[in-house]
């Protein structure tokens, strides 16, 4: 379902981008900026007006550029999700650096054929070829030598890039062609996107969405359990190649927005941010695509509003901002949600300890009688303090919290009185604890993997039949009712002596 939403979203963007751009506008003057990393200045009289113009997409160029970067962001965020889960994030980095010699070679090739070497499709084709060659080299080095992944990637990344620099310096020396267009691939050049580029970007985006939709189940299995996929007869290598080809395609397209050094951020950061929001793969991919396109959009808008903000860097920083927010506040895996869960658990355990200590005090001081809820006896805090490693302050804090939950009738600095509900809960906590202890005693050899579990609902973990067995095993007063509190399997200590 989420997949379809993502598809519709991207298609909607696509249509929105296509409809207003008529044939006449194709001849719109290209922005010419000396600094390729900079967006063409909005050149509006006032800031408010400029903002309005950009937000409403009135300007043709603005519209084209913003749609392009949003689409790139969506495609990168989508495929980046699989790249991240395949644990190949840095492979994307290698791939993007390895595109440089391909761009240069394609340029030289086209110049040799008599063109001016500025054909975008040609350059991108060359880029994809050496990018994939780089990935293949990493895999071959890993397979055939004793070097590991990291070294293989470092070598390929830097050597391919070095070769690219050599080729670039050669091109700069060529008399017949200027290489100004090529350097813009290093840092990105959103400003000079034209309609033809936009078509390429849109096509690649559609291809990546189609690929992810059709191969969703295959990619999911490949990323989760490659070995199992192989035993089922799936061509793992072929799937890997298809995935890397898609990665290469979106990377190469993304080069134009953020440049080959930062494009890896466009791939990984939105996907990694999305992981904090959901445990569902489809939703994660959709959110990744959304965050990617939002970063592309916001980054472009910001860089066009303020002077001296290179679009590529701003896009990456926007994505990083989204990552930070997601890491802190993501509802599925975010840091704060895990902290909250942890604190809740701690509080729950503390509450159970308090109630059980109170119940056990009642048990001891009723001289063997079963405690009754109507007793309303005041339990002295001193004996509770001895029962656990509480400080007076932490105990007071817990008493206040328990009182707020109506578990205590009243409390002061010397003692507490359990309420009706508090007594019931205390009885239950004590019962569960004792059953748990007993289970561990009886099944010491095979139970260790359960020890850390919350004994709150013993029945749920052990099953009703096993619980019944355990109740029978308990030494003191066996009761027919499962809810009755059994005696402790070990003698209780009197803490007020």
């Amino acid at each position: 379902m989420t997949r379809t939403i993502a598809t519709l979203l991207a298609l909607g963007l696509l249509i929105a981008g296509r409809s207003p751009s008529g044939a006449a506008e194709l001849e719109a003057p290209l922005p010419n900026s000396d600094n390729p990393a900079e967006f063409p200045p909005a050149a509006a009289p006032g800031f408010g007006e400029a903002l309005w113009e950009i937000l409403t997409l009135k300007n043709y160029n603005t519209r084209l550029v913003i749609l392009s970067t949003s689409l790139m962001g969506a495609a990168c965020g989508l495929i980046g999700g699989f790249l991240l889960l395949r644990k190949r994030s840095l492979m994307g980095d290698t791939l993007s650096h390895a595109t440089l010699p391909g761009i240069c070679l394609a340029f030289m090739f086209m110049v040799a054929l008599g063109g001016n070497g500025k054909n975008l499709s040609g350059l991108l084709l060359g880029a994809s070829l050496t990018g994939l060659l780089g990935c293949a080299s990493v895999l071959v080095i890993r397979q055939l030598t004793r070097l590991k992944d990291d070294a293989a990637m470092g070598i390929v990344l830097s050597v391919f890039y070095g070769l690219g620099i050599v080729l670039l310096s050669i091109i700069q020396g060529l008399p017949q062609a200027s290489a100004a267009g090529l350097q813009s691939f290093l840092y990105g050049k959103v400003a000079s996107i034209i309609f033809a580029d936009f078509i390429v970007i849109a096509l690649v985006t559609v291809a990546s969405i189609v690929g992810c939709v059709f191969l969703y189940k295959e990619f999911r299995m490949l990323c989760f359990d490659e070995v199992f996929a192989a035993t089922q007869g799936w061509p793992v290598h072929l799937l890997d190649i298809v995935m890397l080809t898609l990665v290469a395609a979106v990377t190469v397209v993304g080069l134009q927005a953020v440049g080959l050094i930062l494009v890896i951020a466009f791939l990984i950061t939105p996907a990694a941010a999305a992981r904090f929001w959901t445990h569902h793969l489809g939703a994660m991919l959709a959110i990744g695509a959304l965050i990617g396109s939002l970063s592309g959009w916001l980054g472009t808008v910001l860089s066009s509003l303020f002077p001296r903000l290179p679009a590529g860097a701003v896009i990456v920083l926007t994505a990083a901002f989204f990552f930070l927010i997601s890491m802190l506040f993501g509802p599925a895996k975010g840091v704060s949600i895990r902290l909250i869960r942890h604190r809740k658990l701690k509080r729950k355990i503390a509450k159970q300890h308090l109630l059980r200590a109170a119940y056990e005090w009642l048990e001891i001081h009723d001289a063997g009688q079963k405690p009754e809820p109507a007793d309303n006896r005041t339990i002295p805090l001193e004996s509770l303090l001895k029962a656990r490693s509480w400080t007076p302050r932490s105990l007071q804090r817990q008493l206040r919290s328990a009182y707020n939950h109506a578990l205590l009738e009243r409390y002061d600095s010397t003692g507490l009185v359990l309420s009706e509900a508090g007594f019931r809960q205390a009885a239950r906590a004590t019962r569960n604890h004792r059953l748990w202890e007993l289970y561990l005693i009886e099944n010491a050899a095979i139970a260790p993997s359960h020890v850390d579990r919350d004994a709150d609902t013993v029945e749920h973990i052990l099953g009703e039949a096993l619980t019944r067995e355990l109740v029978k095993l308990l030494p003191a007063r066996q009761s027919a009712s499962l809810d009755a509190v059994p005696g402790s399997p070990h003698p209780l200590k009197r803490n007020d002596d």
Partner: protein
Amino acid sequence: MIRLFRLDRASRAAPYQNDVGRPGAFPEHSPASPLSIHDLTVAYHRQPVIWDVDLEIPEGKLVGLIGPNGAGKSTLLKACLELVPVASGLVRVYGQPYSKRRELVGYVPQKESVDWDFPASTLDVVAMGGYHRLGWFRPVNKRCRAESMQALDRLGLSDLAHQQIGQLSGGQQQRAFLARALMQNAKLYLMDEPLAAVDAATETSIVELLREMKQRQKTCLIVHHDLATVTDYFDWIILLNMRVVAAGPTQEVFTQENLRKTYGGNLTILSAAADAVQNAGE
């Protein structure tokens, strides 16, 4: 691709070179044998890990594969599944190479082999067992999902079907893997330590399931580490320490002598094993 290529070449070239002059080099394997391994040698880097393994596993039995750490138990399973390159020898599944009988073989890898943080639910993982029936491009459909639910139900995990897999306990994760294998609907199952580090409830339910599978004439080859339970669980065992030390019905093979050969001088394990043998004899 490189690996696959090398593997094919090795298994094709091996038997002719390997068995020259060996009496009884090619015993007639009955085509019905679920898994016959012949003269299998596997080497990682330059060190052979398993050496000259000759086995024929009977149909419809629970077979335990037992040996010390580093004896090559997992490697043997992986070699049967063509996951590691084989230096020599051949593996036949119902008389055919594995690649032709893939649909008859289910595999349960070690729990540690995957990243449990992966964004998928238990149901998603179990459904993977049915992907090969769906074929390319087709998404998981209602039928596949219903079958997965059934498999989960049999292992008592239906409550957890929509939980993220990382939130399951170790034993539950192991059971999810077994449910995935059930989804494959295979005849021969290769399981890598399904009973390692699981809790009592899981162990009981897995063993129950295995017995039920045996009744339905499935064959299971199970890597096992706990010598105390060997006689309870398995009809047939293979003692492996790089070579096959002994293989056969549990009563005949699980002797102190054989265990000493398998485990060498490891005294603590040996004494535990001896106890187990004695208990079994009583």
